[in-house]
């Protein structure tokens, strides 16, 4: 026992020594009025660093000087505190409810249950309207260049436009995700469709000696009347080499089920879907001419509508039910509840056992080819545009000669990301809040007059070699992950498509390094393209995923406009519907026709009984009018 306690004491002592020595403070250049505390919702993976303040780009930022209230340049010190993964919402609510927000000068707004207007009315969010022109001109410049986003960037409070939030914008619409399919399986197990000159013959192609992919795949709808209508009205350049209709998809799914059989894969599936049976933001539902499941903007009617009881949604579920019955849909789709909608069951999809899924760029082309999973041998994954329904239902939900439409509501392709709010805490602490605004203005800087590196690069690209060397320390994140040459390079010649900056190839091959090596997590900064989309393959991806333009998905900045009286009602309505659908839509998909009809009736009954739905819709439409 004695030995035991002695060794325990020694252990504790050495542990504490270790901890104490590892927490040596940096030298702080700034004075108290220029020391800020900000809260960010997302922390970095602790294998990069355990504390966001160890972020090298942040350390660099803390050596710079910014213009303060008095017009002079000051050193700033920004201290970042981050949320716990999965606990952010709880933290945010507690912070707001207990006055804990007063500790922070700037707060990430992503996990708020309250609208910005509410936070402003409660005296928490600072009204930035009077500061904008003088202290955040770069941000305003961007908004001026992008009027679509400027419309909702300010909130209407008592009839006046007020800037309450600083949003993160991405200067270029860059599609990061969408539907993808196994083109190599189509090639191997498919045949030229009917109507094609080579009907019935196998496809030819594959990787050539240089590793470039070639094939002669055409999709069946190209040879139909509808296909020609599509070509005439929607995409004249379409040559049938990519799927555009649900019928193309079904043709493909059929091929995938053959492929699974032939390859002897028993734990795979043709396609899967997010666990409620749908993606709440719209996506495939929009293929039926409708919008999302919740509120969406019908641009033609200039009206906000509710999609949960729509014909389009019903037909969509019908299709899923049929797919499920035919064995095309993952039998266990409803069980992947802990997955994010663009990362459903990656264990299966990324080991080459699925035919089609919703993904981000990580699964494209032959990126999934790994030694460990034999099913990924020779894999070739390609992006697909939203399909259009030409199979199910009647009338408005089905594409026909008299009913030509395109999908309009999906989550992707928005330039706007989450935002942050300045708090009113500085009024008590006397901090130089204008100087902090200068910092964020710097992170929104797109161009400089003197040719120096603009601030958005620090936000989005990280540090150059020269910048890194001013703050370098052995053992820091750049050092450990081989970024000592800088996280991006400035190109000498500007000839290459006007691209001036090149990402360090180490980040290029491991995108997960981008966030920890930059200030990307700090909301409210500007993001922009570097050299990411250059290859021909990448152009195909952007072309497919970006083919239809999202006009119906409500921006967060729009939702943030709701006042306190309606926001709570909106939230509870939203949650009630979501919870009910999450339980009942999978039942419809998995059930027989009787279950299908019964559950649909239940859903309609439930939604119609909700107290505030009408009121919320009304307020939304009022807001829409006010803004335009």
């Amino acid at each position, binding site marked *: 026992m004695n030995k035991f306690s002695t060794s325990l004491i020694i252990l504790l002592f050495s542990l504490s020594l270790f901890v104490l020595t590892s927490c040596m403070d940096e030298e702080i250049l700034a004075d108290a009025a220029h020391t800020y505390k900000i809260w960010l919702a997302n922390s970095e993976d602790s294998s990069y660093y355990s504390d966001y303040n160890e972020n090298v780009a942040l350390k660099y930022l803390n050596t710079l000087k910014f213009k303060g209230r008095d017009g002079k340049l000051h050193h700033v010190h920004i201290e970042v505190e981050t949320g716990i993964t999965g606990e952010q919402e709880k933290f945010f609510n507690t912070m707001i409810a207990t006055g804990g927000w007063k500790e922070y000068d700037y707060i990430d707004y992503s996990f708020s249950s309250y609208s910005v207007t509410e936070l402003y009315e*409660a005296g928490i969010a600072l009204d930035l309207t009077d500061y904008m022109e003088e202290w955040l001109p770069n941000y305003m410049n961007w908004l001026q260049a992008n009027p679509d986003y400027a419309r909702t960037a300010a909130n209407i409070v008592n009839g006046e436009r007020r800037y309450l939030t600083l949003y993160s914008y991405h200067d270029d619409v860059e599609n990061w995700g969408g539907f993808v399919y196994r083109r190599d399986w189509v090639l191997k197990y498919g045949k030229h469709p009917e109507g094609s000159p080579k009907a019935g013959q196998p496809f030819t192609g594959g990787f050539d000696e240089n590793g470039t992919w070639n094939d002669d795949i055409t999709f069946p709808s190209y040879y139909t009347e509808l296909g020609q209508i599509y070509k005439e009205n929607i995409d004249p350049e379409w040559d049938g080499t990519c799927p555009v209709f649900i019928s193309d998809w079904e043709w493909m799914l059929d091929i995938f089920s053959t492929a699974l059989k032939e390859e002897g894969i028993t734990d795979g599936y043709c396609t899967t879907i997010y*666990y409620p049976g749908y993606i709440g933001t719209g996506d495939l539902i929009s293929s039926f001419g409708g919008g999302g499941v919740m509120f969406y903007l019908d641009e033609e009617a200039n009206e906000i509508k509710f999609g949960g009881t729509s014909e389009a949604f019903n037909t969509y579920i019908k299709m899923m039910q049929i797919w499920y019955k035919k064995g095309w849909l993952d039998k266990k789709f409803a069980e992947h509840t802990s997955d994010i909608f663009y990362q459903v069951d990656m264990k299966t999809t990324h080991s080459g056992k699925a035919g089609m899924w919703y993904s981000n760029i990580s699964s494209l082309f032959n990126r999934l080819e790994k030694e460990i999973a034999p099913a990924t041998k020779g894999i070739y994954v390609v992006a697909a545009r939203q399909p259009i329904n030409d199979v199910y239902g009647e009338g408005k939900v089905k594409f026909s000669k008299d009913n030509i439409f395109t999908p309009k509501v999906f989550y992707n392709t928005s330039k706007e990301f989450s935002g942050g709010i300045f708090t009113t805490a500085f009024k008590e602490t006397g901090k130089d809040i204008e100087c902090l605004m200068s910092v964020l203005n710097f992170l929104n800087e797109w161009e400089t007059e003197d040719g120096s590196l603009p601030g958005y690069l620090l936000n989005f690209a990280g540090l150059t070699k020269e910048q890194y060397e001013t703050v370098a320390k052995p053992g820091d994140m750049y050092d450990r992950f081989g970024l000592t040459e800088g996280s991006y390079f400035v190109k000498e010649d500007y000839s290459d498509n006007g691209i001036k900056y090149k990402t360090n190839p180490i980040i290029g091959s491991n995108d997960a390094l981008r966030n920890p090596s930059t200030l990307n997590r700090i909301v409210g900064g500007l993001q922009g393209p570097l050299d990411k989309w250059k290859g021909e393959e990448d152009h195909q991806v952007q072309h497919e995923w970006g083919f239809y333009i999202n006009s119906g998905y409500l921006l967060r900045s729009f939702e943030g406009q709701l006042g306190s009286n309606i926001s709570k009602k909106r*939230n509870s309505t939203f949650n009630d519907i979501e919870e009910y659908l999450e339980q009942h839509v999978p039942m419809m998909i998995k059930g027989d026709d009787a279950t299908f009809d019964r559950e649909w009736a239940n859903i309609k009954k439930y939604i119609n009984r909700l107290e505030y739905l009408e009121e919320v819709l009304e307020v939304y439409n009022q807001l829409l009018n006010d803004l335009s």
Partner: protein
Amino acid sequence: MVQKPNTEFQAKQARLIHSIPKLSFGKRLKKDLKKNWVVYVIFLPVLLYVLLFNYAPLFGLVMAFQDFNVLKGVFGSSFNNFANFKTLFFRDNFGIVLRNTAGMALLNLTVGFIVPVIFALLLSTIRHKRYKRVIQISSYIPYFISTVVVVALWKEFLDEGGVIANFLSWFGFRNQNWLANNKVPVFWLINTAIDIWVGFGYGAIIYCAAIANVNPNLHEAAAIDGAGEWKRMWHVSIPSIIPLVVTMLTLRIGTVFLQGFDKVLLLYSPSIYSTADCLTTYIYRIAFAGSADYGVSTAAGLFQSAIATTLLIISNYLNRKITKSSLF
């Protein structure tokens, strides 16, 4: 100073004598304070602790009667009387939630309760001391694993192709992810099974101790009469631990609505809400899942507390009746 009674008998007499003239409450209190004031002073730190950390936050219960707005706080929000309770009771799924809570509680109270007792009885018939010790120590292990880990492990085992699902498929059940099965008793049984796995060894300690202290002569006499292990257990061990079992059971009734539900939050998923959603998770979702409706959430919590308190009082009463002892 009152002369202290020396024996139990005298004490009883003294109590009787005291109660006959029936001093007024105030006087008795005064007397008691005079006699025991030191003890009460010693109690002060505990009192302070309980008042601060348990009773002071109870002011939050007024949220149950408020149209609570986080931004305005408890003191700024307006009262809406019983509207929160109305919302709660008339919500579509409240009936299901109650049913699930009761179902799981009942299983815990019956199956979950009896397993440690049986385990202790069986253990008592093992003669090999080393083996007995090994069994005992291994049976405690699950108790030391944190809930999050326990749930993660069980999820893995219950999944299709997992060890439990495989095992059950030998008995003709479809190999499936059992946590996605929304037939009525499945989730309840899983919940109880996990509870048992975690606590049976630890819960058996007290019964083992009681059985170990049974007069060996009784066993011996029975053995001479030709009674086998079974008979001896039935006629000797079981009767001797019955009073303890009754006390433990009544205690359990009082807390059955409050404990053991936290893991449901980690286990369930929307597709099995219909069988897995219970008061604890329901309250959690109302409070934290987006809508942040603290009013209704507090009302639901208050409702849960009321049920638990009623059960506790009943069980304490039963306990006192049956075993002549009580918690308070």
